[in-house]
């Protein structure tokens, strides 16, 4: 019992976070920046921050993760980090030769009050930024929001710095994918291509954090949105932002800056939310939905009908990021399952909590939702009344083991299994994969727990 120290009795905690279901802003900013082609994320803070972010991303993706740091010393913390950042910009363009540097702040540089735009301006005036190269930034104080906020801020910064408007329009649609896997980003692009829609996706970590083994080490892999594409986002017909918390801010900023109308949707996880995504995309772009996509939808519904008897009434506990939880919960309800416990570590707000509550309004069981909460609380709920399935990141495996409940790994980080980098959970195909994973977990358990007499060949 690894978590034997978890008490069943639930006491209100005011000052303490135990087993967090979130982490801090800068890692989200770093991840978003990796979705820009030939971009080197730069952490303006202590050396440890970026070492931790790189290690965590490396463990999740099993890929080299490149970033630089201002390597704050005590002196920088007293006198400000301007000298460090200036030196860093100079060194980075000299040695690592990126097209663009994406600076994010940390709790340290935020608190001492470094003014990043002013420092970047100075670097420019000093001729430290080569012609045709860029430095952009986002403020990402670690003590505000969560890793999702950091992603959102860096994505919005792409709009603030690069999106241009010149009065002309293209047929392209901007897609902001949210804090999701490279495989999910590829799947969104595949669906859009099937509809024949020309898209600009930003950020785009496909083929950055799930690249091939080539025998070569590349600081900057093939993938990522280019600065040219980011500039063109201001000319597009419209923007679809997936996930309010991760993508809403960038879409609204683009609307305000370049008058590109936007729709903010749920992540296309599960049947309903994929329907809405496809519907919005085809209307916005003025195209028809091809038979290929209809077929995928039909297959998903077919599979659900084939297996519904094993899904019915299953109690599920979920922990994850706000945007993911919302769509996922909705999908589970559509599958006749009962999402009963939901925890997200991110402070996503009251309106969000209400929306989440709305998805489970029909569930007859007592539902517990905590925004923001932690995994310790989730475990306590489960101890008081168990569930049939847990969905969460790798850290949920402690709970799954102690309580002997099957776990489907979903979210960030996943440190111990293959799959998330290559197989999307988005769209109808992704929903089919999620369905498969949940069914396998439930049916493996049923096989394991059946007596010899009840053990069934055909299911």
């Amino acid at each position, binding site marked *: 019992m690894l978590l034997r120290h978890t008490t069943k009795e639930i006491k209100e905690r005011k000052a303490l976070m135990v087993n*967090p279901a979130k982490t801090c802003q800068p890692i989200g900013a770093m991840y978003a920046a990796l979705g820009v082609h030939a971009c080197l994320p730069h952490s303006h803070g202590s050396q*440890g921050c970026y070492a931790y972010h*790189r290690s965590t991303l490396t463990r999740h993706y099993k890929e080299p993760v490149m970033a630089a740091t201002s390597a704050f010393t005590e002196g920088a913390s007293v006198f400000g980090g301007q000298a460090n950042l200036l030196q860093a910009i100079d060194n980075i363009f000299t040695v690592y030769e990126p097209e663009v540097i994406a600076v994010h702040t940390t709790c340290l540089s935020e608190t001492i009050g470094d003014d990043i735009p002013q420092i970047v301006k100075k670097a420019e005036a000093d001729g430290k930024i080569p012609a045709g190269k860029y430095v952009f930034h986002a403020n990402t104080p670690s003590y505000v929001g969560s890793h999702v906020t950091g992603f959102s801020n860096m994505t919005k910064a792409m709009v603030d710095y690069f999106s241009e408007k010149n009065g002309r329009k293209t047929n392209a649609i901007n897609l902001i994918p949210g804090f999701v896997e490279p495989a999910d980003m590829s799947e969104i692009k595949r669906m859009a291509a099937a509809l024949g829609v020309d898209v600009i996706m930003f950020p785009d970590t496909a083929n950055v954090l799930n690249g091939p*083994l080539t025998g070569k080490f590349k600081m900057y892999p093939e993938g990522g949105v280019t600065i040219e594409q980011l500039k063109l986002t201001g000319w597009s017909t419209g923007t679809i932002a997936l996930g309010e918390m991760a993508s809403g801010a960038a879409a609204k900023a683009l609307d305000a800056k370049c008058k590109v109308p936007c729709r903010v949707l749920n992540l296309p996880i599960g049947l309903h939310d994929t329907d809405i995504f496809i519907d919005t995309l085809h209307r916005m772009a003025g195209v028809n939905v091809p038979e290929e996509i209809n077929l995928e939808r039909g297959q998903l519904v077919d599979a659900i009908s084939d297996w519904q008897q094993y899904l019915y009434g299953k109690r599920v506990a979920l922990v994850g990021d706000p945007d993911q939880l919302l769509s996922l919960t909705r999908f589970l309800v559509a599958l006749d399952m009962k999402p009963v416990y939901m925890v997200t570590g991110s402070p996503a707000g009251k309106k969000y909590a209400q929306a989440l509550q709305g998805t489970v309004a029909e569930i007859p069981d007592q539902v517990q939702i905590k925004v923001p909460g932690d995994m310790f609380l989730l475990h306590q709920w489960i101890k008081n009344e168990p569930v049939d399935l847990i969905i969460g990141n790798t850290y949920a495996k402690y709970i799954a083991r102690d309580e002997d409940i099957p776990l489907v790994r979903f979210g960030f980080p996943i440190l111990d299994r293959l799959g998330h980098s290559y197989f999307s959970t988005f769209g109808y195909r992704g929903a089919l994969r999620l369905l498969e994973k949940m069914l396998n977990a439930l049916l493996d358990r049923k096989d394991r727990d059946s007596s010899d007499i009840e053990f069934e060949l055909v299911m």
Partner: protein
Amino acid sequence: MSAIPILKERQKQIYQKGRTPFEMTCEKHSLAGSVSQRACVFCGSRVVLYPISDALHLIHGPIGCAAYTWDIRGALSSGPQLHRLSFSTDLQEKEVIFGGEPKLYQALIELIDTYRPKAAFVYSTCIVGIIGDDVEAVCKKVSRERKIPVLAVHSEGFKGTKKDGYKAACDALFQLVGTGSVQDIAPAGINILGEFNIGGEAWIIKKYYERMGVQVVSVMTGDGRVDEIRKLHGAALNVVQCSGAMTFLAEMLKEKYGIPYIRVSYFGIDDMAKALYDVADHFEDDPGIKERARKLVRDEVNAIYPKLKEIRKDLSGKRAAIYVGGAFKAFSLIKALRYLGMKVILAGSQTGNKIDYEILRDMCDEGTVILDDANPLELSKYIIEKRADLFIGGVKERPMAYKLGIGFCDHNHERKIPLAGFEGMLNFAREVHTSVTSPVWQFVPFRQR
């Protein structure tokens, strides 16, 4: 492969034996803008203290520092598992403005009342140093009220390097020393310092010493317990592994309690045997200890030797690159790899000092590249140029090695099997063999041409 640019300031942190004059610069703060593989002060403190499993470890700061260090290092405990949970004060903007002391106090009280730990460590993070919380005062107050030691660890990330974090951890540990009874400690009693029980390594080492008739008073800090720390001043000798982490504590123990210390490595046959003999030599009044050590080494080496010989056949002539945290580890690795018939073509460390690099230079063959605080471009450049077959490093280096199409061995947090001791040497050989001879490398594009 085109030449990669190397910063002028970095040129003295790279040395090729026989090619360039040796004027290695090290123990420098990393250059701003470098893609260094190093971490911070907090990281140093956290890895040293974390294995003490009946103590509470509370991280005072925003959530990240706690989230990224939540059970990432497999320091095994045979008893309590409290150290595998993640406790944070999760500081918010409000506290950054008005101070985090009340929140810290409340968090400590809640935790201590729930878990009744033997002691509590409170880690300061960057922000705490900036907003000026008096962590020491809060710790003292809680200590008085709850009657357990509550120790402030001064590990603000920006206040130096990982090494300074080791020192902060040792300072905290030292406050516990001397508060326990030393009655039941035998004359031949030692402390094992700088062994963190990754993959159960401390258990292997401890058993060796016990078989020699030496009492292990405490292991710092693998599978550690607060009561062991309290009485470790009763030992006659400190045996220090891992050059950086625990030498500070050994020095303090020497100064205050007059306990001598020796530096050892448990990695590879030669160094492992030497560690046991060195300890036996210290207790020369009891010749039985040396005798038993000799027998132990003989038995253990005989047990693994035939298997190692088999493995050596395949590995002979293969080339290895080493990039590790402390340079001391690199010394052992070089010897162990040579034992397997392998050649070291690159050796580097994050935190080595001048003497370390001189030893490295003397150990290495002509042409070997020696690096201090390297970046990925430098590492990949030399791996390709020197045609390495194996890379030994930590978490951030693994995918890089694989991308280059060569084998990898984690000699850091993420080793899953014990690599220390005689059986560890066999594990190491097997792991290296598995990775270097994996059939996957034949599919790497440049090998298929």
